[in-house]
């Protein structure tokens, strides 16, 4: 993509809407809004829209509505003036509504630039930030709560409640009983089993927990005994002798 295309692409994205684009087209001709030539501005507007389409930009519906409005005004301008037009020429100007909207938009655009300046000046004045205890403190309770705040709070609660309710307990695919049988089998085969070895075939977190619960259960019912050579050394699982005898 060449430079010009890049330039156009960037500029088009900058327009806040059809009025903004129109205003730009008018300003770049350095003419007064009230003196716009609908035919000329419509052509330029449509060209820009075409360009946006060519560049695969998402042409928002608002831009198309304005295009239709412009064409409508243009066609009205072409109509021969009706008989009573001479009496109230001002009111009959088909451009009137558009000019009014453009002027209004221009005004608020100007106001928004002023707001931007004001925010920048304000930002240059620093105040003492609130200390952490103030944020937690009782002072906050005197702030008026608006309906929006309450609704936001309610939304938070609903989301939190949903989290609680949405917790589904799934049936465990691994049963502790099966694990107990398996451990006993392994110990019988080898005579003894290292604690760490028991988990070798555990495939998931759930599996690990089931295996651990199985060991606890076996120890509790005195089917196996857990032994250790010294502190921190590996634990060895053995069958309980009295039961065997």
């Amino acid at each position, binding site marked *: 993509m060449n430079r010009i295309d890049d330039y156009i692409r960037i500029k088009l994205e900058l327009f806040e809407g059809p009025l903004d684009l129109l205003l730009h087209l008018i300003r*770049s001709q*350095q003419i007064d809004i009230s003196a716009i030539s609908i035919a000329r501005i419509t052509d330029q507007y449509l060209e820009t829209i075409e360009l946006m389409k060519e560049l695969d930009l998402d042409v928002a519906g*608002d831009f198309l509505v304005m295009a239709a409005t412009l064409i409508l005004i243009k066609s009205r301008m072409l109509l021969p003036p009706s008989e009573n037009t001479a009496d109230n020429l001002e009111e009959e100007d088909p451009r009137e509504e558009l000019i009014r909207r453009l002027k209004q938009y221009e*005004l*608020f655009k100007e*106001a*928004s630039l002023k707001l931007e300046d004001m925010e920048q000046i304000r930002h*240059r004045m620093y105040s003492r930030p609130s200390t952490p205890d103030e944020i937690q403190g009782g002072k906050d309770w005197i702030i008026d709560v*608006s309906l929006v705040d309450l609704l936001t709070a309610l939304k938070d609660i609903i989301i939190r409640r949903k989290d609680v309710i949405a917790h589904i307990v799934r049936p465990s695919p691994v049963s502790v009983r099966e694990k107990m049988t398996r451990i006993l089998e392994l110990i019988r085969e080898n005579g003894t089993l290292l604690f760490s070895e028991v988990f070798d075939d555990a495939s998931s977190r759930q599996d690990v927990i089931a295996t651990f619960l199985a060991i606890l259960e076996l120890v509790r019912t005195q089917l196996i005994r857990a032994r250790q050579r010294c502190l921190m050394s590996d634990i060895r699982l053995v069958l309980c002798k009295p039961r065997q005898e």
Partner: protein
Amino acid sequence: MAEMSDSLFFSLCEALLFSSSEPISETVILRIASEYLQDDEVGPLSEFIEWYNQRQSGLKIVKLAGGWQIVTRPEFSDAVRRLKTTTRKARFSRASLETLAIVAYRQPITAPEIENIRGVECSGVLKSLLDKKLITILGRKHGPGNPLLYGTTPQFLMVFGLDELQSLPSLEEFERDLADSDTKYLEIPFPQTDDISSTSNLESVDEK
């Protein structure tokens, strides 16, 4: 004015204003002062503020959202910023500023009315302004669909350094400015290739 009683009142006011991270209203300051000082010691707050702002100081007292607050003088902002570890959040987008301006001047106003002025859909911008607590819902308009009415908040006044909505420059002022300077709008200069990546939303439509 420079009597002893005033000084005590002045000192108390300064202590109160310094301690608060938010603007405090005159009523609150005077109420607290009257609890700790004799009646004849409590002077008008305006005297204190006038005295305070006349001093040679890096601080000044400003009126924000109906209350008073001590802030650093803007001329020292660069120096003060050196101490700040956090960088400034992104400035307002064009869309936010335009919408805020319309809400500020035309409140209470509905979304369709704002959209009519801007010529674009505004729900996203309105939501973000609501989230930032710069605007709030004032109620519903009686009419088809009972649309929500929006207005600005005290937070808006704080962020834009305003005491009250009446301190906004009047729209007539802008109208006059625009009429005076119809020729000030010049063609946007063609940017160099290097500029393209750095061209931000704020720079280019701003045709000053």
